């Protein structure tokens, strides 16, 4: 029973997307998508509850036995990622209607939602599959749909950003494909579990290490790991708000997940232990500092948040590089936690975009006072980004610190502290602009005159934002779900205890 349900996560969006594309009314299209995301969320939650008991769900597509057929193997890690993706998707959809209505031309709205579903499909597929080639396919499904989604942004810069993302993303995907090809040449298999069990047979081939490099670089491009992040800031800051929320919260996280999967469940850990961790810690540290500093320099809210994402991905990469239980736990927790904070922050940015038609900070001066609910949501999410106790950000940073101290990486400890202080600086910059700065003369050309709705933040948007914000606090205090799933997953990744 459970097996059959798990595949629904992929099948449902696949069926719903073409239907949505054919629908005429924008409200119906939204409704379908919303129901779909909520159902997916429910299923993921159910699956997570089921697998945290230690069970692993196997599903063989079409009844073909592995290693020949494609198999979905779902353990805590898969379930956690699927939960993040579908949860954020559901919240985004709750948030979406008003913002989409404003940013997307009416006749494209059903297409937009269909595309969104395809993107969701791709990301969920990545999270569930146990087959490396299948992973590539889902990676491309999600990427292709996100290129299209990003290009729908109102500013024409969105087109160019999307084009650049397309070029780099495709290079990344092709690298990954090349790596998979080499791995296949060496192993004769595409099944993750199969490759790992027979790894000793072909370990000494040079082909394998080349494959590793191509795979890692390819995924790192998708995950926007420094220095391969150049596509990210532009894409996130010009995409429609709904898209930036969803992608910022999930796309890079899923890519980081894919990286973890490949590093731990395709290649055995011992194989790359001598070389990669140092590189990862170094790159991650540089990413934290560089991303934060660039974030401070930005003058646009969404661009600032995008650079902060670059920094936060740095934390995740450091966590992997530390190769111990706390470090890995922090990475997985941060997948979950960062999705929550960035979703909330981009949601607030979206509310401002809706009302002020801009997310440039000097257009937003003083808006926080007019929109206290959106503003206070931003402050709480910002505190979480800094890592203040009582919020989710603290939990993941705490584990990262613990991991760094246990492995005597004192440089990393300093990087985390400096990164947190820089985070205070850029969050403060937002607060300063939105609340303390005196409002400039309203830019008349940016405001739809005569519209009274402009004075209010739409209810649904606020509800969605506050749901996520409350989750930010709730999971900072009651960590049973996130921490339980994460530490469960870490134990099976690192092979310490079952």
């Amino acid at each position, binding site marked *: 029973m459970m097996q059959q349900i798990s595949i629904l996560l992929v099948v449902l969006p696949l069926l719903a997307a073409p239907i949505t594309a054919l629908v005429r009314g924008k409200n119906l299209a939204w409704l379908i998508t919303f129901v779909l995301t909520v159902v997916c969320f429910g299923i993921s939650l159910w699956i997570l509850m089921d697998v945290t008991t230690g069970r692993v769900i196997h599903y063989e597509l079409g009844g073909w036995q592995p290693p020949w057929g494609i198999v979905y193997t779902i353990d805590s890690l898969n379930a956690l990622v699927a939960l993040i993706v579908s949860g954020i998707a559901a919240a985004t959809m709750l948030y979406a209607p008003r913002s989409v209505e404003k940013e997307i031309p009416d006749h494209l709205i059903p297409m937009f939602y269909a595309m969104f579903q395809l993107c969701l499909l791709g990301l969920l597929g990545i999270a569930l599959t146990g087959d490396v080639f299948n992973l590539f396919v889902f990676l491309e499904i999600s990427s292709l749909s996100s290129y299209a989604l990003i290009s729908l942004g109102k500013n024409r810069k969105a087109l160019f950003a999307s084009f650049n993302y397309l070029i780099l993303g495709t290079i990344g995907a092709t690298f990954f494909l090349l790596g998979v090809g080499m791995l296949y040449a060496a192993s004769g298999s595409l099944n993750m579990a199969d490759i790992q069990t027979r790894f000793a047979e072909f370990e000494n081939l040079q082909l394998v290490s080349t494959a590793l490099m191509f795979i890692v670089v390819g995924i790192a491009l998708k995950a926007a790991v420094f220095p391969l992040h150049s596509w990210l800031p532009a894409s996130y800051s010009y995409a429609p708000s709904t898209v930036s929320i969803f992608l910022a919260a999930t796309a890079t996280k899923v890519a980081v997940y894919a990286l973890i999967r490949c590093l731990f469940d395709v290649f055995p850990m011992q194989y790359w232990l001598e070389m990669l961790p140092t590189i990862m810690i170094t790159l991650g540290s540089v990413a934290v500092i560089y991303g934060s500093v660039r974030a401070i320099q930005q003058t646009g809210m969404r661009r600032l948040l995008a650079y902060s994402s670059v920094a936060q991905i740095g934390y995740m990469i450091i966590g992997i590089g530390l190769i111990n239980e706390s470090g890995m736990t922090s990475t997985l927790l941060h997948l979950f936690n960062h999705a929550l904070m960035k979703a909330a922050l981009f949601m607030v940015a979206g509310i401002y975009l809706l009302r002020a038609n801009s997310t440039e900070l000097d257009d937003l001066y003083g808006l926080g006072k007019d929109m206290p609910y959106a503003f206070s949501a931003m402050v709480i999410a910002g505190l979480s980004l800094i890592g203040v106790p009582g919020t989710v950000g603290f939990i993941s940073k705490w584990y990262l610190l613990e991991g760094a101290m246990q492995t005597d990486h004192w440089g990393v400890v300093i990087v985390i502290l400096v990164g947190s202080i820089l985070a205070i600086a850029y969050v403060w910059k937002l607060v300063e602009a939105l*609340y303390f700065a005196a409002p400039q003369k309203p830019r008349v050309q940016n405001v739809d005159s005569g519209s009274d709705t402009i004075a209010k933040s739409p209810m649904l948007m606020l509800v969605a934002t506050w749901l996520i914000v409350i989750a930010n606090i709730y999971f900072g205090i009651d960590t049973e779900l996130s921490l339980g799933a994460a530490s469960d997953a870490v134990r099976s990744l690192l092979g310490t205890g079952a």
Partner: protein
Amino acid sequence: MSMTMLIAISMLLPLAGAIVVSRLDRVPNIREAATLVTAVILFIVNILIFGQFTDSDAKLIVAEPMPNLTIAFSVEHFGMLFALIASSLWIVTSIYAIGYMRGHHEKNQTRFYTFFAVAISAVMGVAYADNLFTLFLFYEILTVTTYPLVTHAGNDKARKGGRTYLGILMGSSIAFFLPALVIVWYVAGDTTFASGGMLAGKLDPKWAAPLLLLFIFGIGKAAVMPLHRWLPAAMVAPTPVSALLHAVAVVKAGVFSMVKVVGFVFGTDFLTQSGATHWLIWLPMLTILLGSLVAMTRDNLKERLAYSTISQLSYIVLGALLANSLGLLGGSLHIAMHAFAKISLFFAAGAILVATHKTKVSELDGLGRQMPFTFGVFLIGTLSIIGLPIFGGMWSKWYLLLGSIDYSGPEFTRWALLGTLMLSSLLNIVYLAAIPVRGFFVSSDQKMAIKEAPLPCLIGMAVPALMCIVLFFYPQPFFNLAMAGG
């Protein structure tokens, strides 16, 4: 009722009060009655806790976000002392606020009472925190919830002050307090407060001083220089808020945290052995003197009082850093004594503002004869701060002096300590006593009829002023608590 229940109630009650108050915007009388009732019940709850806490080691664990890192509450002597002071002064402040806010025609009064109650809830959290992590959490919540109070006026000046307030308190706590917390947890594996400290034997003594410095700078609410700027900046707030900041909640939460850190994280013995305080003790000493000197130069009455607070707070920090039982006793007694004295002073200053709209010391000539009651209260507060007999302030200074004589550090430092305490008392006379003297004895050519402030203000003022005197003759409750704690 069980202990854990009472502790939970002490925090939930003000919150519930806040919700009720926020719904009563239309009916100011009932709203203020609700505030008062909540305050009185809270005080009773704290008295109940006081009545039975000694033979109970009840612990209320709310959540455990991470192994060995809990949000938990328990009652211990210092916390009890702090909770009693804060909750009793909340009643007084509420009475006073009713007169002040109405007399001064402040806007958004509902918001004011609501956030006031929330802030008190956070104070209870600080007072009953069972570990450093919980303390930190509520310390931050307190900062955030008092922010709308500080910027109550809502104009640019208020926001500018609020910006400094938030910036310094948040910034210092995240940049210094949080790392210190992490280090403590890493070294000791736990952050639960333990009588006698939990770092002894786990932390290399040579690292004690840097860690303590992190705490001193991190607990910005204690306003040790150079992190004192937020206090004068927060003077833009209405007077009852200033009272809350200075006497009831915020700064006291700061010095209380300091006392907790010294007594229950480091442990006095460990701190003495490590010699960490030998040079760190100069920080509060300098703050005491510089605070007093700066206060002399300020003409704005509230600003002068703010610098006086900065100076007085460092007495408490000093008491903690003396790292002996007499010092801790003096320091924690001073939490109580200073609270009552300073709140009298602020209420009097607020009453002057409400009645005459005057804020400068130089404008007060001759006012004492028109407002004898207000200036009388101010005089009592002043004398208690100076530390003269028949006023409560004497006791805390007395024990601080004894603690200084007991100080185990270098001879020179000990003399410097004694000298600082003496000199500072003299400076207190100069900058504080000058005000009632002006009011009563300097004659003014201005002829105008000035009446005393509204009745609730007067009642609110009378109580703490009386307490200043009562505490001289009957300091036992606080004395016993501080004694047992040390």
